[in-house]
C-alpha cells in the first residue's frame, strides 16, 4: 500500500475539502483518515490516503494537487507518509 499525507494550509474558504476530495475520487485515491484544525484563522487539514489504485505517478498527483491549491489560494502538499512515521515513531 502506498500511503501519503496530504496537507492543506491557508485562509479558510468555502469548498477547499470538496475540491481536493473530488480530485482524489477521480483518481482512485482512497481517504483513510481526515482531520482538520484552525490555527490563528488559518485552515489546517491533513488526510492520510492510500494511492495503491491510482494509475498516475506520485509526482503527477503531487503537482496536480499543488496546482489545485494555487487556484484556490491555499497550499496543498502531498508527501509519502514515511517521512512523518520515521520522524515521530521509534
Amino acid at each position, binding site marked *: 500500500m502506498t500511503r501519503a499525507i496530504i496537507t492543506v494550509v491557508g485562509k479558510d474558504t468555502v469548498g477547499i475539502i470538496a475540491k481536493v476530495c473530488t480530485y482524489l475520487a477521480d483518481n482512485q485515491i482512497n481517504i483513510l483518515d481526515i*482531520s*482538520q484544525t484552525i490555527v490563528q484563522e488559518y485552515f489546517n487539514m491533513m488526510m492520510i490516503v492510500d494511492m495503491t489504485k491510482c494509475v498516475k505517478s506520485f509526482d503527477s498527483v503531487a503537482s496536480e494537487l499543488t496546482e489545485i491549491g494555487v487556484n484556490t489560494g491555499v497550499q496543498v502538499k502531498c508527501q509519502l507518509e514515511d517521512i512523518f512515521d520515521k*520522524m515521530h515513531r521509534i
Partner: protein
Amino acid sequence: MINISEVLETNKMIEQENLDVRTITMGISLLDCADNDLQVTCNKIYDKITTLARNLVNTGEEISREFAIPIVNKRISITPISLVGGACCKIPGDYVQIAKTLDRAAKDVGVNFLGGYSAVVSKGMTRSDELLIRSIPKALACTERICSSVNVDSTKTGINMDAVKLMGEIIRETAEETKEQDSLGCAKLVVLCNAPDDNPFMAGAFHGVSEADAIINVGVSGPGVVKYALEQIPDANFEVLCETIKKTAFKITRVGQLVAQEASKRLGIPFGIIDLSLAPTPAVGDSVADILQCIGVDRAGAPGTTAALALLNDQVKKGGVMASSYVGGLSGAFIPVSEDQGMIDAVEAGALTIEKLEAMTCVCSVGLDMIAIPGDTSAATISGIIADESAIGMINQKTTAVRIIPVIGKQVGDTVEFGGLLGHAPVMPVNSFACDRFVNRGGRIPAPIHSFKN
C-alpha cells in the same frame, strides 16, 4: 497513526526552520582504474564515475519531491587519487590531467562537488603522494568542482611535519593561483588529522580504502531546527536543555536515515553511514553560532562558548546515534566562519578570534574551517596553524581540519565573497610572531603514548 500536529511540526521544520538533508554523497572506489598509461587511467575513471553515478542527481531530486524535503547537494567522493595515479603520473602535470577528467565527470553527472583529490600521508609520503600534493594548486585553479584534502597525521602515527610544512606552501600557492577569485581554491582544500574514510561533507570527503566498491553516505543538517527548539525554552536548566537538543537531533537524523535508505534502494548501492552533523549555511537562522547564543552566550566567542559547544556536540551525537543504524563521517557541530552568519557577526563584533576558534575545535566535530586570513601570511605561519590543529586531533583522538584562505591582496578589515554555500568572510588577524624554526625542523612528531593499545 500519524496525527495532524506531528505532520504540521515536520512541515514547519522544513518550511520555516531550514531543515534539509545537506548531501547525498556516493563513494566510489577507483582502485580498479589504475593503469600505467595516463590516458587509459583517465578513461577508466571517467567511465566508472559516469556509469555508477549517472542516476545520482535524478534520484536525489525524485526523493526530495516525494517526501517534500530539500536535498541540497548531490556529490561524489572517490578513492584518494594518489593511490590511483601512482603508476601513470610522472610529473605533477599528469595529476592535473586526472583532475580535469574528474571535473568533466562531475559536470556530466551533474554533481556540484567531487572530493578525493587527496593523499593520506600521516606517517610518510610516497613519490606519488608528493606529486599529487604538488599538483594541487594548478588542479584547483583549472577545475570547478574538485575538492582536495591531505591527511597529515593521526593518533596512531603521529604528525608528519614534512607534510605539514609542505601544505603551508601548497595553501599559499593555491591562493596565488586563484587570486583573481579571492583565492577561492583554498576553500576547496583541507588539511586533515584522523580523517574518516566515509565523510560525505566537502572539502574533506574521500572514499577510503576500507570501503566497498560503491556506497551511499548521507549528511544531515538542521541548525535552524535546534535553534527554534531552544528558543522555546529560554530559561530551562541544563537537563531540559540537553534533552531538547537530543530529541531534536533524533528527529533530524531519522529523516537522513530515511533518505539514505531510499537512495540506497533506488540506486542499488549499499547504504554506508549517516553523518549526523549540524552544518550551517549563510541563510539567516541556519547557524550554529545562533544556537550557542540561544544556550546563553551573547556572541559566539564569549566565555562559556567552548562549554556550550561541547554540550551541543555531545547531545547531537546522543540523539542522532539512536536514530540511525550506522553513524560515521564527522558527526557533530561544524563551526565554519564564512558559511555561518552568526559566526561572521561574532568576528565582526570582535567576539571571536582564531585562538578561540582553535579552542572550540577541541570539542566539536571538525576544525578551523573557512577562515579568511591576510594574504601576506607566511607559509610557515600557516604550517604552524596546521600543526597546532593536528596536535589537538592527535592527542584527543578526533578528526580535526584546517581550511584557511590567505586571500591575496586582502588585509584585516577587508571582506571576501566566496558565493553560494561558501558564503562570505571578514579577514581575521593571525598571531604575527614567527614559528619558522619549529616548522623547518623536518621529520615527524611521534605518536602519543595513548596510541599504543595493543
